[in-house]
C-alpha cells in the first residue's frame, strides 16, 4: 500500500518534468513549415514524399494566409520559438534579413547540393543581403496585361491585336468604357489605387522603368521619383482614372484582388496582373474569354515588370535547423520546385516541366526577362507606403503628379539618408 502510494506520489512529482522534456525530444525530430494556403495541397504531397525519404523527420505544416502575413512572420522571428521554415514574399527577404533574425543559407546550399547557377539571377538577387544568401527563391512571376476578348469585340477592338503602345492602351481603355448590352457601366482599365499597399507599386513601377525613370538611383543613394520620366509615368497611370474616366469610381479601394473581382464581374475589361489570376478567373467566370499580352510600352521602349515571387527562409532561432536544411534541399530540387510553385519556378531547369507550356502563359514567360527585383533596401516597405500615399493624392486630385512626387521624393530621400 505504502509502496503504491510512494509510486503514485513519485509519478505525480515527475510528471511535470516529463511534460517539459517531451516536446524537447519531439522538436529535434519535427520541422514546422509555414506555407501559404495557395500551395497547401502540393505542400502536403511534397511532405509525404519527404517523410518517405527521411523516416526520422516529421514535417508539421501550418498554412498561412496573405493578409497580415508580413507581421505574423516578423512576430514569429522575434518570438524566440519560430517555425523551422517559412515561405515569404521575395520583397520581404532583405528587410527581414536586416533584422538579423534569418539564418544565412550559403552553407546549406552547398551541403544540400543546391546549384545556385541554375537559378534565374533576378529571383536570386532578392535573397541576397550583405553578400550572403538569406533565402532560397522558389517562385517567380511578372505581370502582363490581362484583357477580356469578348469586351474587345463589343467595343469594336480586335482581340487578337491588344495594345502595344501607351497611346493605344489609353485609346482601348476609353473605347472599352461604355454601357454594356444589359445597361451596366463597364470600364476600360483597372487602376490599383487602394487596398494592399504593395499592389500599386507592382503596377506603377514597371511604367516608370519602361519610361526610363526609377524610384531610387541604381547606387541606392538618391531618390529620383520626382524626375520627369517617373512623374510622366505616374501621371500616365493615374490618368486612366483622373482624366479619361476609364477606371471605376472604386479605384481608391481597389487592390489586385479587387481588380480581379471586377474583371470577373465584367466591370473592368483590362488590368495588369500575374498568371496566378488566370486559374481564379476561369473558376469564377468560365464565360470570359481571357486574353494575355505583354505590357504596352512608350514608343520604341522595352517593356518592364517588377519581379514577384516567394522565397524559403530559415529563422535564426529555429530549433531544428538541420531538419530545415534537409527540407530546403528537398524542396529546391527542380522537379519539386516545379511542382510546388503557383507561377514559374526560380530554377531554369524546372521551367522545362510540361505544366509551364500552356500557351496562355507565354506572354507572362516573355515578360520574365524584362522583370527586375525591387531595390534591396531595408526601408523598402516604408518607401512603398510613401509612394502609395502620394499617388493616392493624385487620384484624389488634391495634388498634381509633380507636387505629389516631389513630396514623395523628399520623404524617400530622408529615409535613404538615415
Amino acid at each position, binding site marked *: 500500500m505504502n509502496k503504491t502510494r510512494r509510486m503514485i506520489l513519485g509519478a505525480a512529482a515527475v510528471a511535470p518534468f516529463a511534460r517539459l522534456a517531451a516536446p524537447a525530444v519531439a522538436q529535434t525530430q519535427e520541422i514546422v513549415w509555414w506555407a501559404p494556403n495557395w500551395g497547401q495541397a502540393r505542400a502536403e504531397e511534397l511532405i509525404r514524399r519527404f517523410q518517405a525519404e527521411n523516416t526520422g523527420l516529421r514535417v508539421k505544416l501550418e498554412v498561412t494566409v496573405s493578409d497580415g502575413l508580413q507581421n505574423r512572420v516578423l512576430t514569429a522571428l522575434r518570438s524566440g520559438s519560430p517555425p523551422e521554415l517559412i515561405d515569404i514574399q521575395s520583397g520581404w527577404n532583405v528587410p527581414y534579413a536586416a533584422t538579423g533574425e534569418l539564418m544565412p543559407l550559403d552553407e546549406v546550399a552547398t551541403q544540400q547540393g543546391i546549384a545556385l547557377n541554375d537559378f534565374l539571377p533576378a529571383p536570386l538577387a532578392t535573397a541576397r543581403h550583405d553578400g550572403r544568401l538569406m533565402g532560397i527563391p522558389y517562385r517567380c512571376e511578372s505581370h502582363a496585361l490581362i484583357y477580356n476578348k469578348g469586351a474587345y469585340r463589343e467595343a469594336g477592338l480586335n482581340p487578337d491585336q491588344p495594345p502595344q503602345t501607351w497611346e493605344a492602351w489609353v485609346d482601348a481603355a476609353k473605347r472599352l468604357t461604355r454601357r454594356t448590352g444589359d445597361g451596366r457601366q463597364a470600364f476600360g482599365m483597372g487602376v490599383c489605387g487602394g487596398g494592399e499597399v504593395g499592389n500599386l507599386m507592382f503596377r506603377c513601377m514597371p511604367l516608370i522603368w519602361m519610361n526610363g525613370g526609377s524610384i531610387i538611383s541604381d547606387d541606392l543613394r538618391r531618390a529620383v521619383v520626382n524626375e520627369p520620366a517617373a512623374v510622366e509615368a505616374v501621371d500616365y497611370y493615374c490618368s486612366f482614372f483622373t482624366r479619361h474616366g476609364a477606371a471605376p*469610381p472604386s479605384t*481608391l479601394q481597389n487592390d489586385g484582388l479587387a481588380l480581379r473581382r471586377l474583371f470577373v464581374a465584367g466591370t473592368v475589361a483590362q488590368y495588369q496582373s500575374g498568371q496566378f489570376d488566370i486559374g481564379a478567373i476561369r473558376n469564377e467566370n468560365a464565360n470570359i474569354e481571357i486574353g494575355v499580352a505583354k505590357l504596352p510600352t512608350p514608343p520604341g521602349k522595352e517593356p518592364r515588370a517588377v519581379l514577384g515571387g516567394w522565397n524559403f527562409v530559415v529563422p535564426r532561432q529555429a530549433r531544428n535547423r538541420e531538419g530545415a536544411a534537409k527540407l530546403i534541399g528537398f524542396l529546391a530540387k527542380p522537379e519539386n520546385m516545379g511542382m510546388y510553385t503557383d507561377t514559374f519556378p526560380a530554377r531554369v531547369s524546372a521551367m522545362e516541366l510540361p505544366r509551364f507550356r500552356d500557351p496562355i502563359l507565354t506572354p507572362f514567360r516573355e515578360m520574365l526577362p524584362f522583370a527586375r527585383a525591387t531595390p534591396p533596401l531595408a526601408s523598402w516597405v516604408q518607401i512603398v507606403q510613401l509612394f502609395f500615399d502620394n499617388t493616392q493624392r493624385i487620384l*484624389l486630385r488634391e495634388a498634381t503628379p509633380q507636387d505629389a512626387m516631389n513630396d514623395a521624393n523628399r520623404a524617400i530621400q530622408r529615409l535613404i539618408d538615415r
Partner: protein
Amino acid sequence: MISTPARGAAALRASAQGRRRPDFVARHHGPFFISPALLALIALIGYPLIYTAWLSVTDDRGNYVGFDNFNEILDDRVTALAIRNTIVYVGWSVFFQVLLGTAAAILLNQRFPGRGFVRSALLVPWIVPAIVAATTWAWMMHTEFGIVNYILVEAGAIAEPIGWLTNRDTVMPALIAVNVWKMFPFVALMVLAGLQAVPETLYEAARVDGANLWQEIRFVMLPQLRLVLASVTLILTIWGFNGITIIYTMTRGGPANRSLITPIQIFKQAFEFLRFGEAAALSVMLFAFLALLTLAYLRLFRAASED
C-alpha cells in the same frame, strides 16, 4: 539547563511574539494576498511599459540614442496629420456615442411593450466582434458592390455611387458613424444602470413642484448621472485613442492618410516598417497623454464624490 528567570523571560518573549504575530498578519494580510496578482500585473503591464520606454531611446542595435526617435517621428509630416485625425475621430465619436447612448438609455428606462427585447437587441452592435463589424461595414460602404450605394441609387437619392471610404470629405464621417454605431450601446447600458439607481421620489418631488419632462431630465436625471457619464466618457476616450480595428480594417488609414490615426501610425511604424524605436517613441507620448487625461479625471471624480 535554563534558569527560572531566563525561562520566564523566554516565555514573556514568546508571549509578546504571540501577541504581535496576529497584529502583523492582520496588518499585512491584504498585501500578502494580492501579491500574486500584483506580480502578474507587474509582469504583464510593468515589463512591456519599461521595455517600450527603453525601445524609445535606443536604435535597432540597442544603442542609447537619447531623444533621436522622438525627433524623427515628430519631424514626420504624417505625425501631425495623424494627431489631428485622431482628435477629430475620437472627439466626434465620443460626443455622439454619449449623446446617442444617453438618449437610448432614457428611452429604454420608460415602460413600453417589448422593452426587454429592444434592450437586448440594442446590445448587438457592441457584442459583435469589431473586426466582423468593420469588415461588414467596409463591404456595405464599398463604392461598387456596397448595399448603401445600391439602396441610395435605386431610391434615386443619388445619381452616381459615392465613394464613402475613398472620398476625402466622407471617409472620416463614415468611420465615425461606424464607431458610434459600435459603441453607443455600451453607453446606453451604463447610463441605464445609472438611471435605475435614481430614486423615484426625486422625480415625484420635481413633478409636485411642477417640473416638465425636460426639467426632470435637466435638473434631476443628468446631475444624478454625472459620475456615470464622466466615467463612460473617460473610458470611451481611452478606447478611442487606443482602438485601431475599425479604421485599419476599413481604410488602413487611407485614402492618402485622410483617416490615419496615431495608433495606426504606431502599428505601421512597428510592424510594417520595422521602425520599433520610433513606434515606441510615439507610444510613450500617447501613453503620457492618456495618463494625464486619467489623472485629470481621477481628480475630477474625487472632487465630485466629495461634493
